């Protein structure tokens, strides 16, 4: 399924990383949540964010979306610093980003169609025919066109996440954030979500950060690529492309600090006791 994504142009120069986080820290009242967090995500790269519950993963995603302001540090999206921006200016930057929340966060009172069309309406698109065409296109991408008239309450957990993906990608984001997209799902549905993430990355070149507790998801994204011909995942080396295309990096947060940042190989071969706990 070819989804015609033409990413919203930003002010950035092409050699800049899609995301640059520099010495970011945040605390709530007396509780330190993130301290001196720094990393970069290149264009078309995937960063897998690992960490135990309460290590600051979801807070980091909210900082990257500008939903929270850091106490210190800089966050650059496509070269633009989010920290000094007002809510109105942030709204413009957020058009280049999409997020899939842990439980989907679909609007309960709106149908699947209205949920997915929400962003287009917010961007003042008035042509209803154009809206419907685009909504059907993205719902087809997540293989849920049949559910277009359903209400969120009628959907299963996996379907809600897929609608959430459709809602996030409708305005052609350059960057996607996934907050535990497979949490609580059965293995088959979780795999379908992973395929979607890989599909967006490999067919549209979308940079992404995936927060997950499931290491197998991280390895699927790292070891496989989406093949448009086979409409599914294939091992990265047998895709007919030259060399390893795996652009996946791993980042482990521990007590609000970056504990590990590196490639899959470095992560798998690490002898550190704490990192080994993720692999067992």
């Amino acid at each position, binding site marked *: 399924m070819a989804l015609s994504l033409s990413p919203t142009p930003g002010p950035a120069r092409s050699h800049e990383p899609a995301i640059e986080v520099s010495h970011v820290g945040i605390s709530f009242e007396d509780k330190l949540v993130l301290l001196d967090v720094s990393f970069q995500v290149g264009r078309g790269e995937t960063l897998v964010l690992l960490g135990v519950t309460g290590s600051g993963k979801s807070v980091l995603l*909210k900082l990257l*979306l500008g*939903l929270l302001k850091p106490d210190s540090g800089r966050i650059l999206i496509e070269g633009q610093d989010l920290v000094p921006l007002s*809510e*109105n200016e942030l*709204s*413009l930057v*957020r*058009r280049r*980003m*999409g*997020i899939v*929340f*842990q*439980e989907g*966060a*679909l*609007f*309960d009172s709106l149908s699947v169609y209205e949920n997915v069309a*929400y*962003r287009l309406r*917010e*961007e*003042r698109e008035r042509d209803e025919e154009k809206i419907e065409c685009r909504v059907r296109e993205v719902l087809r991408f997540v293989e849920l066109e049949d559910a277009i008239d359903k209400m969120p309450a009628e959907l299963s957990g996996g379907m809600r996440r897929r609608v959430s993906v459709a*809602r996030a990608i409708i305005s052609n984001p350059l960057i996607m954030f996934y907050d535990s997209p497979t949490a609580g799902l059965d293995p088959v549905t979780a795999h379908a979500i992973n395929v979607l993430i890989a599909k967006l990355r490999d067919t549209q070149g979308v940079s992404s950060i995936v927060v997950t507790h499931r290491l197998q998801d991280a390895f699927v994204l790292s070891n496989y690529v989406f093949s448009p011909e086979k409409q599914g995942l294939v091992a990265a080396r047998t895709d007919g492309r030259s060399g390893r295309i795996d652009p996946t990096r791993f980042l482990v947060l521990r007590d609000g600090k970056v504990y590990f940042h590196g490639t899959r190989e470095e992560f798998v071969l690490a002898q550190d006791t704490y990192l080994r706990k993720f692999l067992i």
Partner: protein
Amino acid sequence: MLAVLFENFLKRKVLAVQEFTHLLAGSFERAFSPPHYVIDTLVQMDIIGFGSLPIVLLTGFFTGAVLALQTYRTLSTFGEVGLLGEVVALSIVRELGPVLTALMVAGRNSSGIASEIGSMLVSEQVDAMRALGTDPLRKLVLPRLFATLLTLPLLTILSDFFGMMGGYLVSSSTVRLSGEEYWVRAYQALTIQDVTQGMLKPFFFGVTIAAVGCYFGLHTTGGTAGVGRSTTQSVVAASVAILVLDFFITKFLIAIRFF
């Protein structure tokens, strides 16, 4: 130890006042620039205004009726039963109509607003809204503020009328007061100052009801249990605020010799 606890308590209260003021000022500031969510405002007017109509009319009617019953006992000792229309009209239009209508609307809608927005907050729908480029103050708060601001005065007018109707039915059935005697005395007793006073208050009460509901909704913490807490707190805070505001508005109007 006790001093620290007291200090923290005070800090929290001052912070709450600051955040509430920020929410209110930020919302009104946004009213002067696009985008405006007109459809959302109309939907909220239907929910808050039309939806509150039955309880407001019933409350108004029975308040007027019971006021007539109670006043009749006192007036009859002085042989001034003819003043019943005047007493009911003044009490209803000046105080009971606006205050009881606002309390009823607060009970029904402040809680509804707090629980709806609170549920959206804990299920990350508010974050999703912001991530999709929508300002929650414009989309969630402003339509509810305007809807309550516009419908509460209308509800108060209807409540006042039904209150006087309740008083009239009691007067005609129990006291055998003629309709002409009741309505003429009621009409003659009411001055423009009385009506203005009664119609001024709902605007302040309307803003209070919606703002308190939105404030508690947007500051919900602790999952579904937190939604319940916010709902209760919003009703209590809005009801108390209405009574306190009523006192100060009346005091202010007396101070400027409005009546």
